[in-house]
């Protein structure tokens, strides 16, 4: 079975990419294998755990469920694209400060789901935060300090803005 190759043009973390890929590939495998962006994780490859969450045109998606060819002409932001020239995003800083990182495997997905939330709703309630990350499974933290971190980032984002 010969693979079908397709050319896609996509902006990833601010860089314009023009690349030929196997049309069967998921966005997740494209990011990790073709672009070497291993910060996005494969937890289940079935859309159930959220570890592969990235921003696609500003919306949080499970990249394991998105065919790579579908991102042609679009913009993707992964965890590697969050910091601004080395300065951490308030969410990243809050996760560090609040002790919200243990094994770290869910962290990329969590932060991006939270980022999508804060971009749309800069003053979420705790319930809204929990709902936004309800598709991101974590086995280490019990979510307590993750929720604290997102709320703290929202607050510091409002303070700066």
């Amino acid at each position, binding site marked *: 079975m010969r693979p079908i190759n397709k050319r896609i043009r996509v902006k990833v973390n601010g860089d314009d990419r023009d690349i030929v890929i196997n049309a*069967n590939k998921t966005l997740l495998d494209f990011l990790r294998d073709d672009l070497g962006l291993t*910060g996005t*994780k494969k937890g289940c490859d079935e859309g159930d*755990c959220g570890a592969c969450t990235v921003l696609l045109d500003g919306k949080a998606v499970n990249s394991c469920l998105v065919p790579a060819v579908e991102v042609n002409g679009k913009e993707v932001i992964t965890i590697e694209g969050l910091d601004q020239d080395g300065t951490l995003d308030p969410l990243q800083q809050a996760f*560090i400060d609040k002790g919200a990182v243990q094994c770290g*495997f*869910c962290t990329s997905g969590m932060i991006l789901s939270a980022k999508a939330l804060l971009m749309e709703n800069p003053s979420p309630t705790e319930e809204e935060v929990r709902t936004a990350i309800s598709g991101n499974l974590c*086995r280490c933290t*019990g979510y307590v300090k993750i929720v604290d971190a997102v709320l703290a980032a929202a607050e510091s984002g409002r303070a700066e803005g």
Partner: protein
Amino acid sequence: MSEYSIVGTNIPKVDAEDKVTGRAKYTADLVFPGMLFGKILRSPHAHARILNINTDKALKLRGVKAVVTGRDTLGTTMGSVEVVAQMADRYPLAIDKVRFIGDEVAAVAAIDEEIAEEALGLIEVEYGELPAVFDPEEAMAPGAPKVHEVEKNIGLATTIEEGDVDKAFQEAYLVHESRYHTHLVQHAAMEPHAAVANFQNGRVTVWTSTQSVFVQRFWLARLLGLPESKVRVIKPCVGGGFGGKLDCFSHEFCSCLLSMKTGRPVKIVLTRKEAFVATRTRHPMIIHLKTAVAKDGTILGKECLNVLDGGAYGGAGVAAANLSLIWHNFPYKIPNIRMKALRVYTNNPVSGAMRGYGSCQIHFASDSHMDEIAEALHIDPLELRLKNAMTPNHTTPSGLEITSCGFSETLVEAARGIGWQDRKSLPRGRGVGLGGSGFVSGTAFAILNTPRNYSSSAIVKLHREGYATLYTGASDIGQGSDTTLRVIAAEELGMEVQDVRLVAADTDVSPFDSGTYGSRVTFLAGNAVLDAAKDAKRQVFEVVADMMEANPDDLQARNGRIFVKGNPEKSMSLREAITGCQGVRGGEEVVGKGTFSQEISPENIVTNRGNYAPTYSFSTSAAEVEVDKETGEVKLLNIAFAHDIGFPINPVNVEGQIEGSLQMGIGYTLTENCIMDRGLMKNPSFRDYKLPTALDMPKIGITLINTIDPKGPFGAKECGEGSTAPVAPSIANAVYNAIGVRFHQLPITPEAVLKALKAKETK
């Protein structure tokens, strides 16, 4: 000024920035030139002979570089270690038969994953199906199919008996007897298992998602027929383990074998389904309990029988049998005991070590049992527990030496936090319940390594610029040991945490450490690190004392300086001191060594007598639930948790570990369940195996009790494992308090609640 500079404060984890930026490398992230991808062929049958395997077609597929089966192995078995060598019961690739659905039969290396997957479909295996057995009690019955060649499929039988239990039963005011049944659940670490092996220059280097590099090296060397010096195991970042990454796995061996055959690096990453089915699970248990109590509630004696479903093989699961008896002795004083545990083979997935190592199952049973006794005697369940609680400096009949113990304090605090005194005024359908437990802190349980090596060692090297490098074998699997150990060294040396570099979990350069299990890292590795830092410091102090014309005993290191206690003007920087020390000693490096080990003999393991750990932690969970009688849903409103931590080295990390424990305990009690159908797992995905999400967590309050352990580093004890066990009994007891239905079985799902309510009505 606090006694300590850093210890006891909230310290950000040293690897947090790498993890929040995506820079941290986990095993599946590693890429090497020429790397191949491996896949494993697994048995579709629960029990079958392998009659023939033909790999010709698979080998011919373009892009396939190697195919291996049991014929390509040395025929060495893997499992537990020398102390119980008879339990090494598994070939890494099946040779004569397969024993569960998922058992490894062949492996392929190809230029990409898709081709490797396609090749699996081209391997022709002829199976001769055998009758299979899926229940441990059935497996022990006459005529049951033999999973292994052992009598009644009993892989391990173990007992403890002390005192006179029969006399206790005769003299008792009440003898209470119950049976409990716990179910199959899984670690479900977010990172699936993975390994990359590279065989070059006669040596194999393996990067693997593991809880112990030295255990992996031991088994891989044996299985490959190589001396340990030719095997190097390195642990990259690990995305959670919880006991499920402790054993040596077939995929780790296969990546090595395939690399040896192809001369190229080989990566094998398990799918989520493989992680569910073919790694490890928690032992389902059938627990028979019989307790004798006096009229005032004093426990006089306890008899129990634990039947463990071991699944198809042994491995680290073997220890669960012995440990299940140890847990029965906690957290109450029990003067007479007669206990037996049987680990039985079935054709189910393999049971192994899982957070708590049997304590979740045992405490669900025995702390539900306590509430049943309290009701029979009309005693407040809190009072009954306080009356029987273990206390400091208590030795149990089998020789467990409790030193520091804050169990009573945890009972009082948790009860207070949940509003225990006001429970009678709760509305209908709401209830509160308690659960208590005790756990080993720093278990030296040698079953997971050769008898001599149940220790941890560390090396600290001081650099003339005033920083240090810490060498340890300890494995950070997300629990934060990398941070904790650097904190301990930094505190002792008077440095900042960032000035302590870390070299960890690489068998080529790390001192020995048998791994992350039994809650031993902060205690054993922490003490070894403290010891090594003290040794390095002492060498510097001797020289500095001369230079300052002071006594070495009067010196202190803090904030990057060494000064005379009580005379802080007389000081010098660490940089000056270390350089000075090297100068005086002709350029010799300042290197400190430290070790911590626990005396435990093979006899202890076999007889279950003696002390298992240098110390023990204690916890109480108090839960408040609201049960909807229409839907059967148990809504968990609140958990008040108290944990005897000894002393929290990094309080925010301790809380985080406990919060994670609670999530696991909640899932265990209410929603998680591997649904089996004649050996086939029907729900090997997160869609159908229900982990608690951010929306499922209750309000949580945590109180830490600081008993300052005499042997713990800075008085610290464990927190990440013992805290899981009391959750299930606290919820089960709360449900009983809410709706008067007692659950002897988990999970407590809506269906189970509705069924039980209906049964209650019809009575």
